[in-house]
């Protein structure tokens, strides 16, 4: 018998996420139908082509219009779910309490989406964690969510730099100075490669655009991003 990770209730039946067309065989589910429905799927709905946020029709949102003025190319972020109450509760448990096992809830979906959209000729680059945060959490939540894929560590957090975004307000987040540097020990040549940046939540876009500019300066050709939530 399976138990739902969000409500501890029993899971009675298998159900497939309608959009995963390629997955045929039933797989272990970690959520009951009720809790699953509390997460709002964003893809397959009209959304902002810049960040993936839900819109009434397909057009750039106000924030992405601002990014467009600063950066030539938008990230074209794919966000799977809306950052709503259910998602907030999820991250509280997974990221802040540190219940590592919760990566399982979205891992299969994230893998399926990325492999469908960016199958060949892309490097998957996770947003890194500061040393201090890693000491406390003992795992990188982004690497956990996307585990099972070949990830390339092209970014590191500058030492002495602590990015705990949850402690900053929106304005501070937007003006935060570059927290990353290129990982010179990765042994991978960035020049002329295509990059998909991976993150857990797209909040303001600041973190991802910081990462993107490092990739751009290192010579990357095309840079996209995928996040679990927006």
């Amino acid at each position: 018998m399976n138990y739902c990770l969000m409500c501890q209730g029993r899971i009675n039946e298998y159900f497939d996420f309608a959009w995963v067309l390629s997955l045929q065989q039933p797989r272990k589910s970690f959520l009951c139908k009720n809790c699953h429905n509390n997460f709002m799927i964003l893809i397959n709905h009209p959304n902002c082509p810049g960040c993936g946020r839900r819109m009434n029709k397909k057009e750039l949102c106000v924030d992405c219009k601002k990014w467009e003025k600063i950066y030539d190319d938008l990230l074209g972020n794919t966000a799977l779910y809306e950052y709503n109450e259910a998602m907030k509760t999820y991250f509280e448990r997974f990221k802040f309490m540190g219940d590592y096992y919760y990566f399982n809830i979205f891992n299969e979906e994230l893998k399926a989406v990325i492999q469908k959209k960016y199958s060949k000729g892309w490097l998957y680059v996770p947003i890194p964690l500061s040393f201090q945060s890693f000491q406390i959490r003992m795992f990188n939540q982004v690497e956990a969510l996307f585990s099972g894929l070949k990830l390339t560590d092209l970014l590191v957090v500058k030492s002495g730099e602590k990015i705990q975004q949850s402690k900053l307000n929106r304005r501070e987040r937007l003006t935060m100075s570059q927290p990353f540097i290129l990982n010179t020990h990765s042994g991978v040549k960035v020049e002329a490669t295509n990059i998909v940046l991976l993150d857990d939540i797209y909040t303001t876009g600041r973190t991802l655009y910081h990462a993107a500019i490092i990739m751009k300066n290192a010579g990357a050709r095309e840079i996209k991003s995928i996040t679990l939530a927006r």
Partner: protein
Amino acid sequence: MQKEDFFGRWVTLKKTDQIMIEDETCFVKKDALKVQKNTIICNRCKQRTIKQRAFLPNQQYYCPACIMLGRLTTQHILYTIEEPNHFFDISNPLTWEGELSQNQLRCSKKVVQIQQNNKDLLLWAVTGAGKTEILFAGLAAAFKQHKRVCIASPRVDVCNELYPRLKAAFACTTMALLHGYQTEKYEYTQLVICTTHQLLRFKNAFDMLIIDEVDAFPFKGDTMLLNAVSSARKPVSSLIMLTATPTHFLRSQVRKKKLAVEYLPSRYHGYELPVPKLIIRSKWLKELQKGKICNNIRKTINTWIDSGAPFLIFVSRIDFLKDVNIVIEKFIKGRCVGETVFSADKERIEKVQKMRDGDFQYLVTTTILERGVTFAGLNVLVLGADDELFNSASLVQIAGRVGRSTQCPGGDVVFLCSRKKRNVVNARKQIVALNLKGKNKK
């Protein structure tokens, strides 16, 4: 970190942290997790978890069972110092000057005696019986003897409500309120008021442990909380369990004479609990789905509307709320106003307030209003009382909403069921039995 923080309590430190207190010998030290072949066992909550569920990618393990108290991993160590009972002398700890009814006095004496002899007691008190005051004499006696005491409840609101009342009753006693939603620093106190989960943080700390609403533990028969109780109290200590609706297990312990019991059957005002009226109608749900309400119920609701008395309609499932309310509204035809309410309802507090203020005459609700909420002169209708989601305990609680004020001790409790099921019959039996005990004890 102070030495007092460790008294009768687990303090968690990483293996790399150093404790900066001289005299290391007074500490008891334990690895937070015990790693076995396929499982890990947590030394705080005693739960066993399979490795696959507890695994961290840096080759460490963690305990998911008590993670809401802060994650314990294989890199943590638990420290404690044996409870020394370092408390001040207080000659007259009780600063409360109220009076007890005869029934309350009898129970109060029993609590003092149990406290003195370090025994266990089930205090079976009906809702609205004034059970907090019953504890005062026992608490005062314990405080005088430098005993450390804890009152735990599964519900945060109960803790928040108890704290100021006890603060007023024992003005000179040090006390702390502990639950998951607060940020204040822990302090060593003689009285601890906390949610039941917080008990896991203590180790052989309490000479007297009181558990309120012992039937409402978040999960029935939760072994984790049973472990918490037995490890938080001292090996020689008293345990007092308060409930209006003891579980089957507790009742059987009483029957086998393994657990002492004291009843507080009648309410503070001395009137009896209203006995539920059963209406059996096999097709009520089908009728309701067609928008029809049977005659019996129509008559009952009509009387309530005419008298202007407030009423609650309980349904078993959230999805019924809207449909039921549509039918009710159609039947009422604007003669009075009401709404639906459920636990995650954003306007829940406002709606309950409107009901109190008389802006609403009725609410259609799920079981969230079964405990704690009081409306004067209330009537209650339970739709589908035989539904498995209403156990007999929750039916007794629901019935206990009625007749709580001295001004209007009466009121109707009506259970509509498709057939006579055990939960309904048992609930009714319990209420009748308690009323009988009340009469005999007077």
